[in-house]
């Protein structure tokens, strides 16, 4: 092993050349099989490359250097990557012992808790993680969903607002704010957020969903005149007739023809809620697993 093998391996790792980093580290390990620096780089690169023995290498590092936060964080990362969530949680707990503010550990423990069914613990960990991170952190993103599921729309909205502020061009984030604002009856905020989704959504066909949201807001706060205007606009961009029912209802109401109960308010609101759910589903379905580009 040349004297600079660890630094070469590290440089490759930092440059994103995981294969090169692993090969350099493995070459060094042939001479010094217990070198913790080389094991660490081989293990970290192995996690990125999906190597089967990465976790084992990193466990050896943790055994040799139990007082280093990195050791346990790396091990937790490797175990989580293998889907060994329980063992990963153990490793991340060791991280917290050494470094109580560690965001990655708090985030991981939050998700691990959620997986094992303890929603309250999950939220507690993630709230701590979110406090320590800026903007649209993983913890914050997951909190929106978790709060929503736990029936805490006000908290969900607060989290969604932070994400939308951190990712101002993200249509899905704006949509979360719009939906949650409508749910908690903050109508001005909801209207602004729906307008923003209309602006941000780069699929022209989605304009109708944003308009439906705006109609919904106006109806909920009793401005049926404005709702009718918006419905006419929505009818113009709606290629699939989703607005017909809403428009018919609002026109009938406008002309005082309330005798026609064929479509009642409840049905129309139901249709608008369905439209919103559909829009959300489309965005969820479209989520990629890689890092996004926004």
């Amino acid at each position, binding site marked *: 092993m040349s004297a600079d093998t660890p630094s070469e391996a590290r440089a490759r790792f930092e440059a994103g050349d995981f294969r090169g980093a692993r090969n350099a580290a493995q070459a060094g390990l042939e001479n010094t099989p217990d070198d913790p620096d080389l094991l660490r780089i081989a293990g970290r690169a192995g996690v990125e490359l999906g190597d089967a023995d990465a976790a084992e290498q990193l466990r050896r590092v943790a055994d040799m250097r139990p007082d280093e936060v990195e050791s346990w964080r790396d091990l937790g990362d490797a175990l989580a990557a293998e889907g060994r969530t329980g063992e990963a949680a153990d490793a991340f707990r060791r991280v917290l012992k050494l470094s109580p503010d560690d965001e990655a550990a708090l985030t991981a423990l939050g998700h691990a808790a959620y997986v094992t069914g303890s929603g309250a613990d999950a939220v507690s960990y993630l709230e701590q993680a979110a406090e320590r991170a800026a903007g649209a952190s993983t913890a914050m993103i997951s909190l929106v969903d978790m709060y929503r599921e736990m029936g805490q729309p006000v908290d969900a909205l607060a989290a969604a607002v932070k994400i939308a502020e951190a990712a101002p061009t993200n249509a899905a984030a704006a949509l979360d704010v719009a939906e949650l604002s409508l749910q908690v009856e903050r109508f001005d905020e909801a209207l602004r957020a729906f307008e923003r989704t209309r602006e941000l959504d780069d699929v022209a066909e989605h304009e109708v969903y944003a308009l439906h949201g705006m109609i919904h807001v106006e109806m909920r706060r009793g401005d049926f005149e404005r709702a009718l205007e918006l419905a006419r606009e929505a009818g*113009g961009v709606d290629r699939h007739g989703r607005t017909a029912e809403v428009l018919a209802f609002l026109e009938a109401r406008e002309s005082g023809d309330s005798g026609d109960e064929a479509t009642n308010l409840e049905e129309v609101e139901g249709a608008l809620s369905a439209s919103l759910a559909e829009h959300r589903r489309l965005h969820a379905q479209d989520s990629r697993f890689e890092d996004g580009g926004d």
Partner: protein
Amino acid sequence: MPRTRVSRTGAIDVPEMIAPSRALTAEWRRCPACEAFVYYKRLKRNLGVCPECNHHFRLRLRERLDQLLDADSLEELGAELEPVDVLSFADSKPYAERVAQAQRKTGSTSGAIYGTGTVDGQPLVLAGIDFDFIGGSMGGAAGEAITLAAELALDTRTPLLVISASGGARMQEGCVSLMQMAKTSQAIGRLAEAGVLYISLLTDPTYGGVSASFASLGDVLIAEPAAHIGFAGPSVIEQTIRQKLPEGFQTAGFLFEHGMLDLVEPRENLRRTIRGLLELHASARDVREGPAAAADRLPKTDGQPPTSDPEAVARRRPWEVVQLARHLERPHTLEYLGVVFDGFQELHGDRLFGDDAAIVCGLAKLGELPVVVIGHQKGRTTSEMMERNFGMPQPDGYRKGMRLMRYAARFGMPIVTLVDTPGAYPGVGAEERGQSVAIAESIMLMSRLRVPIVTLVTGEGGSGGALALAASDRLLMLENSYYSVISPEGCATILFKDAAAAPRAAAALRLTAPDLLRLRVMDAIVPEPEGGAHTDPVAAAANVKTALVESLRELVVLDPDELVQRRYERFRMFGAPGRQPVLPPVDAIEESA
């Protein structure tokens, strides 16, 4: 009140399922299907497939290429391609602004990729549409990338892989966008004429003008499970027919069932499947264009050779032969495929209606020679027999077979057919879809194909349903198989007015291999182990292999014109005065059965 405006072309219909990506970085991702939180690195290791529910996340095009291609093998071309605002189009935003926004978001200028790369060292030309770029809609630039890739593949005679994900044609480029369907299709047409392999990978979602042009024109069409593929978007259809669509509508599984896809492969198999196809086609090209002679690629075999002497095989009563031919444990096409051939890659679907399991087709190697194999398939267990319809094909089965015959001709691959059917299926649906037409067309197609065709009757050779796979250069029969214009039972009922007279009818029909050899209907008998093929399938398969290799060795050296002419003469003689041999009366032993 504005009426529902339903696009009836579909081609310019961008379905509603398209949405911009959430695109927020997160170390834990939520599965949209099962709502599990999954650690990002675990998901990545799993190729973007949810480990909890197997949901295939949509991939960015780059990530897809990383998964499929050899590391660092991608050479990108077409940097100059860029969407052009040919109509000066504006909806709520000017088109030019939408393009600029998409370019910023994706880092791609054109919204498509084309270039070259390798899969396990096998070279290919590739193109792909980036779904994140205005919903993957096909405008001039994307059409150009596909077309340039096809032209490069043609010029260099390199296989083409196109990866699609698209909402359809791009409305903002109007009819110029529509014309991309024609432009790309004609480029693919030239590839097909030249016999250059084109693999189309359809990913979630592929719709409209893309699915209705190049994406559906692959020699092989592959999709991932649950990918949505269709012409019109589901809500357009729901609005038109005013009915809720069933679960699974327009998924890859749905299309596969309806014969529209060759393969539905989980993401983890894609690279291996594509590599296998490329390798096999590389061998076929070597045989066709170059250095390797087909005959040299045939394997050495050690089975018992076939015989053209009718006296050389054990003498059995015809009815006994019929029973052996129908024996439940007799080896079927798939068993022979596993032993006689290597690397069988089944291909499915007739691209018209269905995938008939009574006929299996695909690519395989006989020794080192790539061939197309088509055969009837019976089942062994009750459920399998039902699924395979007891080896009685529907028209869809024959049409699938014809699709593969044309495939073989396109790539110069010899064809081996294995016949084992009681007959074509007599059913209402089969008649509605043209059973007669399918059989007739199959016979005619085979008679004119410019590649060698060898047929082996492995069990039952039931009439037209058998001949539809048997209008070939050589007809071989296993010793205990039969080939007949009608089943003995059918003949007994009609002509002997007595179903119990089937054994007599079996003798009268002269349906055994020795008699058919004397009639010159067939060319050689493949010996079976003493108790029949089912008593020692491996030995039977060795004999089958020897016989197929021997026939192909004689045929692959023939010039295609001569091949077709000889095939013509082969069938021309039947019933021709002075040329058709006539059998002496059935002897007493056979009659007494």
